[in-house]
């Protein structure tokens, strides 16, 4: 998984994406903020959404309660 550790928690990259997604943002905005290639952001977003740490609405990604708890 690009952004999820074997224990199911976000890894370092996952945490960075979650921090960025505290405000709704597009994959492009996340890639720009974190200075990452799009493909890594897309793969990471998919992992984080599947694991319930992020949700997507109309092309923007936003952290979930589970995501906020993971950052505590």
């Amino acid at each position: 998984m690009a952004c999820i550790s074997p224990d199911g928690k976000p890894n370092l990259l996952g945490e960075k994406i979650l921090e960025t997604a505290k405000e709704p943002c597009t994959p492009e905005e996340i890639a720009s903020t974190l200075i990452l290639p799009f493909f890594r952001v897309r793969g990471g977003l998919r992992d984080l959404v599947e694991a319930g740490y992020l949700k997507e609405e109309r092309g923007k990604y936003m952290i979930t309660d589970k995501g906020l708890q993971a950052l505590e």
Partner: protein
Amino acid sequence: MCEEQKGRSIRLPMLGEKAPEFEAVTTQGKLKLSDFRGSWLILFSHPADFTPVCTTEFIGFAEIFDELQARNVQLMGLSIDSVYSHISWVRNIEEKFGMKIPFPVIADLNKEVASLYGMIMPGESKTETSRCVFVIDPDGILRAMVYYPLTTGRNMDEILRIIDALQTTDKHHVATPANWRPGEPVIVPPPPTQEAAEERLKQGFDCKDWYFCKKTLDE
């Protein structure tokens, strides 16, 4: 152009067609081909980790990585090895050769992607992928394929030249002659009608005849 996979026949990709989608485990996590949309992608295979020619190629690809990035091109390698083998090998390359491998490498243990793209040449090896290069454009169209045998390392200048030629073709609607390099004259596509052929010689191009005209690009 068909490949047998698990009892079913699959058609190998061809130039000008959509590159087949896949999802694969890589050294940078699970990735789909479609994650690369919007960028050019060089998908390349190598026979095996911890082998000398492949090591020189990985160093070569890493050396042109920044030049590829400047051209909006991503790189992704592949071999029929585990992700742990890949991780160990790229760490070894960094330790022994001082070269960090910045691109993901697919661990294609079940040969799924290799079979989908026809990377295994049974006449050479039934268990290793040959040195294949697939150039995929930002719309996911397969634009170039290059195959080298197990014994022959690839030429990174040619990889860059192919990218430059394809991007120049797309931007200026021209073709590029043999051994073309950026900055050199390009080929004006031959006129499609007799009338256009007569006009062509009056258009100020460097023409040997109506079908063979070159021009220098402005940039």
